[in-house]
């Protein structure tokens, strides 16, 4: 059998024929980056390659780096292979990376979501022979409702709080989820942001993503100046002294994990909205089918049961240990698999 197009090393997913890594977790010479979340775009590589859309956030997070941009669908030759980046629908600028060697195509999914969210470039399936898929939510208990329904729930929650004289504080990861929520919610009042959210929002807005006006909360911007506001903040701000400054508040957390009641209750949150930037069970299965692949490698998430499920569906399925998901935008609260 021919050498595999991609191999799995302790530094990350490696392409021997092109001598590059995809989303490596230790410093390497050349890194292809699927998207800007910190468990995928890490510091310390000599050269970076990512989509034009992903680079501004990556540069903001990593500072001075030697980075090159690439357009979606553009073929790029590296050594003995051709690489191309394709929308993953996960967050703005996110990509699946296809690597082709002599007609054999392997695709690294990065993180992905199948349902279009109106902000990230919509997921586009890529035909391939081998697919390396995340499976953060690879159990059949995770099935998302259509985004429009959840956004309507969030809008109702906000309106009810505003009517009761309360500030709504919504916990969401500062890159991707936060912007998707502000873009999707019914704008019944001012949207305030935590500093971490505002920085990323400003970058994406400058890139041309359609985002509503937001105001950074802080000196002179609070519940008094903006009654009935929606405040979008990183999850770590929930229940903090920072959140309490908004006077009477109602806090909620937007995450795929909110589908499980026990996890929501453990966070002592009355309200949780099930919104994820990852594919749900049906999404994972549909995405894998759409690639037409024979081989699947599953990474971070419920890898063991998901691999077994795929094997029972007739795939040649394996597990790849990675260090994705450790400090990700949507880490499983505590357990892996």
């Amino acid at each position: 059998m021919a050498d595999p197009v991609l191999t799995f090393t302790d530094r990350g997913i490696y392409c021997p024929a092109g001598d590059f890594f995809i989303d490596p977790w230790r410093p390497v010479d050349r890194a292809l980056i699927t998207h800007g979340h910190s468990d995928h775009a890490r510091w310390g590589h000599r050269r970076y390659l990512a989509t034009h859309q992903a680079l501004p956030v990556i540069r903001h997070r990593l500072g001075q780096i030697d980075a090159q941009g690439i357009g979606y669908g553009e073929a790029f030759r590296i050594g003995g292979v051709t690489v191309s980046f394709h929308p993953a629908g996960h967050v703005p600028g996110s990509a699946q990376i296809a690597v082709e060697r002599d007609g054999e195509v392997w695709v690294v999914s990065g993180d992905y979501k199948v349902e279009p969210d109106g902000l990230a470039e919509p997921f586009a399936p890529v035909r391939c022979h081998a697919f390396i898929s995340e499976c953060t939510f690879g159990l059949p208990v995770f099935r998302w409702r259509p985004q429009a329904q959840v956004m309507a729930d969030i809008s109702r929650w906000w309106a009810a709080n505003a009517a009761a004289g309360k500030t709504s504080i919504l916990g969401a990861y500062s890159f991707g989820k936060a912007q998707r929520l502000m873009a999707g919610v019914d704008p019944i009042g001012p949207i305030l942001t935590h500093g971490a959210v505002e920085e990323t929002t400003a970058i994406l807005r400058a890139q041309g993503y359609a985002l509503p006006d937001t105001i950074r909360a802080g000196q002179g911007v609070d519940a008094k100046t903006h009654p009935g506001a929606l405040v979008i903040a990183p999850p770590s701000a929930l229940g903090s002294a920072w959140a309490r400054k908004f006077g009477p508040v109602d806090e909620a957390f937007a995450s795929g994990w909110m589908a499980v009641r026990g996890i929501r209750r453990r966070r002592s949150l009355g309200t949780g909205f099930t919104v994820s930037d990852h594919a749900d069970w049906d999404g994972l299965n549909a995405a894998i089918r759409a690639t037409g692949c024979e081989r699947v490698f599953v990474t971070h998430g419920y890898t063991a049961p998901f691999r077994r499920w795929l094997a029972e569906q007739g795939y040649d399925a394996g597990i790849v240990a990675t260090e994705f998901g450790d400090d990700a935008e949507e880490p499983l609260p505590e357990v892996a698999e």
Partner: protein
Amino acid sequence: MRDFAALFAALDGTTKTGAKLAALTAYFQSAPEPDRVWTIALLSGRRPKRSVTATELREWAAGAAGLPLWLFEESYAMVGDLAETIALILPAPLHEDEPPSLDQTIRALMALTGQSSEARREAILRVWDRLGQTERLLFNKLITGGFRMGVSQGLMTRALAQATGVDEAVLAHRLMGDWLPQHTAFADLVAEDTATGLGSRPYPFALAAPLEDGPETLGDPQDWRAEWKWDGIRGQLIQREGAFALWSRGEELITDRFPEFAPLADFLPRGTVIDGEVVAWGADRPLPFAELQKRIGRKTVPKRLLLDAPARLLAYDLLEDGGEDIRPLPYATRRARMEAMVAALPAGLPLGLSPDIAFAGWADLAAIRATARAAQAEGLMLKRATSPYFVGRKRGDWWKWKLDPWSVDAVMIYAQAGHGRRANLFTDFTFAVRQGNELVPFTKAYSGLTDAEFAEITRWVGKNTLERFGPVRRVKPELVFEIAFEGIQESPRHKSGIALRFPRMARWRRDKPVDEIDTIEGLRDLLNVARG
């Protein structure tokens, strides 16, 4: 189901007691009366007899979802709640229409008892296909039991009092005992009580608060009475016209488990209710709890156990005397009446007073407390001489002053995820001590750490799993914990030869390396101390 589902959503959507109380009160005023009765029953731990087993539910749900059973089990292990797992994996309902009421739903479920497996399966699938996700979850909970909505019985009683205007203590008493929701009308359940028709209904138990500071904070020792805090089964013995019953604190009728109490029915005066502790009795003191434990959970008691571990009721308090509810009287008065009542009984009955311990002052009492283990007690109880027999836990009048627990340092060797609120979090651990170069498992423990610590350990387990046995992970023996416990007994059933009473994690010893944990020999030494 719709009112009930709305109530559930309201309770589940808040962590604030005030909001829960308001939602419950509104429900008790507006929901259909038969539904109210079932809600009271469910929130006080009564549920209809199971007409479908958990195994059947799993199989039917996995089948309806088109999933292999193993994947259902993996999902259940992650979600940590069977009813919820089923609600999450089922395909979307095809015929969502007006759901039946809670009363109708439960009666329909009860009617399934005794029907063929196929008939029951079809009935359950038909219901699943008509309910939305929250209602499905509730419906499944009706079958599986374990109905916890973050509402204590006390809170439910308070809401019922607010909704009906009936006194809370009266309601608490009315809701005790073995009334059956299917035969009880709401109006009867919340009617003002009269002395007649009590039957075998117990009174709500008065509970003591732990004494954190020394007894010096309690003021004049003269105002207080002391007795041993026994380690048995707290119980209430009822002797009324046509009714003889023993209730556990969990409101379980346990009369039949203790046939040796039967003679008391012949000798206790009518209209007597005693609060006491059921213990296994040796020559002059209780036997270790393990002896009594052998009898718990058995429907019938073999003769051998009756001989080896005869039960005795140690009387703490008298609640009803000559048919009169004397709970409002001062403790000292009740105690005096109880002593007179017991003194009038013939010898040889399995009933005795829990001794009143005389003491000269707080220092004297502290010295007595230190001897509790030799008396097979857990510590002392302190009761204010003037205190009434109150409902539930009320700080100030009754205190439990337990011995400091024993402790050993041990290493975690297995971890398993919890359920419910602890779903998906490793919280159930098995610990080992050293025996030479080996590690011997000797106890499990589930509690004592903070959520943050459990979260950290869970991440650690993810990275340090050596082997998986279904839901159980064998982990690197690296994390050391101080295990606190109340007692230690010999146990041939355990590999280590010992069993602990109330083990829990006192703290995570991050400072302690594995080679400094305690040894099995050290534990066996404690066993000798425990034997006295």
